[in-house]
């Protein structure tokens, strides 16, 4: 049976689509089951199944981001698994071209062409490892409440949209260019918001995160990072579909 042709045909009916989705889920489960069990630390030791695979090619990433891009318990290296491919690609290009500065990353991807960076981005975007528990910042209830207020409702007085307006109700991001915030460390979120505020980190114009970060005080950043870190892992890790909602600010990375 010609599988791709068959799948194309199946794709025409809704029922068949559901069936196909089920099949893919089963396949994903099986792939997960085949994976060797390991503690979080073991997940940072290089290993792969087939030499000619993206898994083997991505081994350059694993000591910091983990075998499945789940992040590690070492340093503040972020979870990259399941973030929209467009976002990951933009970051890889920015690291390569030096517009986002972090010397270890700038060095690693300096001589990689666009197509390959896109492939690496898709590889990690498609992975759905479990969310690893991370340390919770000790903050008082008032700070958490302030964080929740900014993240879920924003502040109309200051022209500050809610985080969830763009980063998704479940904080899993939005296709193609807005990253999920679920599972990120508070230290990482604080550092990135601060970098954005002082102009060290940029996104394609119009740079919506710059408009937002420059409206945040230090206390806001602490509060919002703490609240985000306290959120339980999302039930569904996939980013929201592209532009289901009208975004409150224009973002260059969504074009």
């Amino acid at each position, binding site marked *: 049976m010609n599988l791709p042709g068959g799948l194309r045909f199946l794709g025409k009916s809704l029922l068949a689509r559901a069936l196909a989705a089920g099949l893919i889920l089963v396949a994903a489960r099986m792939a997960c089951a085949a994976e060797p069990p390991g503690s979080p630390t073991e997940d940072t030791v290089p290993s792969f199944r087939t030499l000619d695979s993206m898994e083997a090619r991505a081994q350059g990433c694993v000591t*910091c981001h983990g075998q499945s891009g789940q992040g590690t318990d070492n340093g503040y290296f972020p979870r990259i698994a399941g973030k929209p491919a467009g976002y990951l690609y933009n970051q890889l290009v920015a690291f390569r071209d030096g517009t986002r500065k972090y010397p270890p990353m700038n060095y690693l991807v300096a001589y990689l062409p666009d197509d390959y960076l896109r492939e690496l981005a898709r590889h990690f975007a498609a992975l759905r490892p479990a969310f690893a528990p991370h340390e919770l910042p000790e903050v008082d209830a008032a700070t958490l409440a302030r964080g929740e207020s900014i993240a879920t409702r924003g502040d109309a007085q200051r022209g500050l949209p809610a985080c969830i307006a763009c980063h998704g109700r479940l904080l899993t991001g939005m296709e193609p260019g807005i990253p999920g915030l679920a599972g990120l460390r508070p230290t990482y979120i604080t550092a990135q918001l601060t970098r954005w505020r002082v102009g060290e980190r940029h996104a394609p114009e119009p740079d919506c995160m710059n408009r937002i970060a420059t409206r945040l005080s230090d206390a806001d950043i602490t509060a919002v990072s703490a609240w985000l870190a306290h959120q339980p892992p999302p039930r569904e890790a996939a980013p929201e579909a592209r532009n289901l909602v009208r975004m409150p600010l224009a973002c260059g990375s969504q074009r």
Partner: protein
Amino acid sequence: MRSFARVVAVLAFFAALGALALYFLQPGMLPLRTKGLSAAPATSFIDRGEYLAHAGDCVACHTEPGGVQFAGGRAIPTPFGNLYVTNITPDDETGIGRWTQDEFYRMMHSGVSRDGTLLYPAMPFASYTRVTREDCDAIYAYLMSVAPVKHPNRPHELRFPFNKRELLVGWRTLYFREGEYVADQEQSAQWNRGAYLVQGLGHCAMCHTAVNALGGSSESKAFEGGMIPNQNWYAPSLTSNREAGLGDWSLKDIADILQAGVSQRATVYGPMAEVVYNSLQYLSDDDVQAMAVYLKGLPRREAEPPPTSQERLVSPRIMESGRAIYQKQCSVCHGPEGKGQAPAYPPLAGNQSITMASPVNSIRMVLNGGYAPGTRRNPRPYGMPPFSHILSDEEVAAVVSYIRVAWQNSGTPVTPAQSNELRKLLPE
């Protein structure tokens, strides 16, 4: 007594005259030719210029990270301060739009800028002087054909006395031999083509010949290797079989590593990855083959004797610790016996770049990892992750010592201090 004073005075006068002549005449200045410009060079000529500009790797220095190609502005840190590379797009005010073909050739051939000032030798005119007039004209035609970009040049930030360009007269006297490449009739046309590319546009000697305290490289030490100033990578000797000497390499492996960035013997990382990515991957099979023939034929020089067994001694405790780290972290890619899985993962056993006297590159690879360059022949390269946050200096030293002496590798052990020194430097 009086006549003696007169002799001294006359001698002093001539010495001063000589110094003045040297200062004003500026050796290396060529009288400008008044040949008419070809107003509309043929497409094929511009294409050739683009190809040669790739061979000369102009883009690597003359483009700022993330900036417009050839618009300049990139800082080149040197031991003497920062140099800022110039705009070579054909913009009339800020680029080379008003340069003539003759002025461009004089710059390439003699290292003298349009306004008569002497160029700093960070511009590899000491190599480009080998390039023929016709090839220079083609590069000129190509550069004139790209989009002009208005981007003013930034003044250099060199310390005194290096900010005095007049001093370059001295540097030039010591280290600059002007002249186009002269073919060696004893050798084949292919060998000569390779020599022309390696010595000229390729400017390989800029890194692979040691640079001394005056920023010069001695011809007698050509291709004998050296630390690249300010980059903290070691450019291995191309003449010693203990380093990257290519004498016992197959022509295919040499051509592969130049053009694809990977081979059965080794892989390029760091500054050489940049050269392959920006320049060598675009060269034709014939030209890469010619370079391989020339490089393989470089006279073999054993700069230093191989280390004695005493020098290669590693304490059993460190060897065992290195072996354990290797088996856990490295062996999945490089194999339990260091044989690698070339070209994806380079072999470590018998790899000259692992065993050469300077352990700098091996330590840096363990600390910072690295991806081979993505090239036309190898667009999806494999990469090594950084271990600087996982391994302590003692562990880095143990595992690097292990790979340098295991499997009959002829290297010497390294110390935690050497790892620590390189750890403090951010990767470029």
